[in-house]
């Protein structure tokens, strides 16, 4: 039954969209949007990888563990340290359960979970709203591995992507960020005022065959890999542990998973 309906939609979609071919917003309708289920991705939607991360919060033992992770990211990416919270720029940071999973908190929940900081970063969504709204394709999803990237030289600073992101993952350079960079990393570009930026899943390190900096600094609390590869470590964890994502009901398909329980994974 559902297969029939799916095929019908594909056919109907294809015939009406002949003239419009290639608009990603309509592609969504045809492929799987109409059957919107947060649980499945369109089969064959991408032949490439889909990079994802599993965060095991129980493996963060001390505040230093969190600091090390965000420092690893922010220092190599020339993320400025701006004290004014309104102008703050952050790629990976922490917040508590009730803020990371709004509407999920409960007053009778275990207190250690309520107090636990959860690392948050760009979710590199399967269907990223930020990419859908960008008027210049300055933010785009890389076909080969699903990483949502930014072209800082094309961004016009309209900030539509910041309104569209349901995870608050994007920061804007309200002023020139360069005076606020503590230690310049000359192998990664700095940004100019007036552009948006966010976590890039360490695209520059991936291309050199390395893991993202946060993963490397996490002592195994962050696990990174390809969701399309059944034998990857992330898939192994997800098949054996209960993992949750932020706001899955919005259908954006976040690629960051959280494991809360305390025991060792496989």
């Amino acid at each position: 039954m559902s297969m029939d309906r799916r095929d019908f939609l594909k056919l109907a979609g294809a015939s009406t969209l002949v003239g419009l071919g290639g608009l990603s917003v309509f592609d969504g309708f045809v492929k799987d949007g109409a059957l919107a289920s947060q649980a499945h991705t369109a089969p064959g939607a991408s032949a490439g990888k889909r990079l994802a991360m599993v965060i095991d919060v129980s493996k963060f033992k001390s505040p230093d563990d969190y600091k090390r992770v965000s420092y690893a990211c922010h220092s190599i990416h020339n993320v400025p340290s701006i004290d004014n919270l309104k102008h703050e720029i952050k790629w990976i940071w922490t917040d508590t359960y009730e803020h990371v999973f709004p509407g999920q908190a409960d007053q009778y929940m275990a207190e250690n979970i309520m107090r636990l900081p959860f690392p948050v970063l760009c979710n590199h969504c399967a269907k990223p709203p930020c990419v859908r709204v960008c008027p210049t394709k300055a933010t785009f999803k890389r076909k080969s591995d699903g990483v949502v990237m930014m072209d800082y030289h094309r961004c016009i600073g309209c900030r539509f992507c910041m309104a569209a992101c349901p995870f608050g993952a994007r920061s804007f350079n309200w002023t020139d960020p360069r005076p606020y960079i503590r230690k310049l990393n000359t192998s990664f570009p700095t940004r100019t005022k007036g552009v948006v930026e966010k976590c890039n899943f360490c695209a520059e390190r991936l291309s050199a065959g390395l893991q993202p900096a946060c993963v490397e600094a996490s002592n195994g609390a962050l696990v990174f890999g390809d969701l399309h590869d059944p034998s990857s470590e992330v898939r192994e964890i997800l098949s054996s542990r209960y993992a949750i994502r932020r706001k899955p009901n919005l259908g954006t398909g976040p690629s960051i998973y959280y494991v809360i329980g305390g025991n060792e994974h496989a």
Partner: protein
Amino acid sequence: MLEKALTGNRGYWVWIFILLAIIGVGFINYLEQFKTGLGITGMSRDVSWGFYIAQFTFLVGVAASAVMLVIPYYLHNFKKFGKIIILGEFLAVSAVSMCILFIFVDLGQPTRILNVMLHPTPNSILFWDMIVLNGYLFLNIIIGWTTLGADRKGLPAPKWVKPLIYLSIPWAVSIHTVTAFLYAGLPGREFWLTAIMAARFLASAFAAGPALLILLCFIVRKYTRFDPGKEAIQAVGKIVAYAMIANVFFLGLEFFTAFYSQIPGHMHSFVYLYVGLGGHSELVFLMWISAIFSVVSLILLIFPKLRQNERTLSMACVTVFIALWIDKGFGLVIGGFVPNPLERVTGYFPTAPELLISLGVWAVGFLVLTVLYKVVVSVTQEATTLEH
């Protein structure tokens, strides 16, 4: 015809120079923003759009309202709108000019604005907004200028302009629908994620725009010998009344859905706007002014005696305009950002430079409006003198 704007009495030139002075102040502040960045505004990581985009949103409505004159005049042959219609079309030109400027001053990298055309992206609503806004600007310039030019010679408007006039009707609806879609299609912004957004936008547009037009008619009639016609103004008054009723009704629907369902995410923004949230209540005072003015305006508009009296009608128009200017030019955009996606509250209020830049943009709009209305007034007076 533009030479008509180069001659005028002393009052005309004083007004022009006041506007130019305000534009100058705005421009100097813009230079500072251009140099330092948008950090000189009150916007933040959490409230990433502010007064500029809110003003843009409000003015799209003012622009779209010209259609409320075009439909009765061209589709229903309501001849009494014969003189007022050009004022509506030129108001649209002025309003769209301000819209485009407000988007421009909001850009972090304004020198890259042509990237929108160099890399056209049809899945972005902003791309379509650029197309419909520019299209509407040109439609109204062409239609207004051509019909006025024909009037001047005492001739009927050329035939080719008719299809453009008919096209301008759905086009006016499109500019406000597309602008509503900027907001209404974003997952996770529950305050904006409402199917009635475009309808609400249109209702508020058809109230605020014609209300401003009535006030402009009163001003034009007072300072020149151009009379748009008492009956025409009364007819526009009725339009404002119906549209304002629809607008308040639609807002009521939003309140019902949010507060009867009791879904926290749907209630939060309303709570922030009308009573304050998490210790932040920057906009509460303004939102209550908007609410009170809405009620007052409805009383003044619904009772025929009050609406027919031009003094109370002008009060009604002032209250409608201010109520909707606050509701759309502030609350609607800011409310969507509070609380942020992590349910944390960051407040917002525009800074002085931000307000001065906005004032400068408004002054540009009024300069465009003044020049165009001056041409209309001079041309019509010239035509009537020729007839006699």
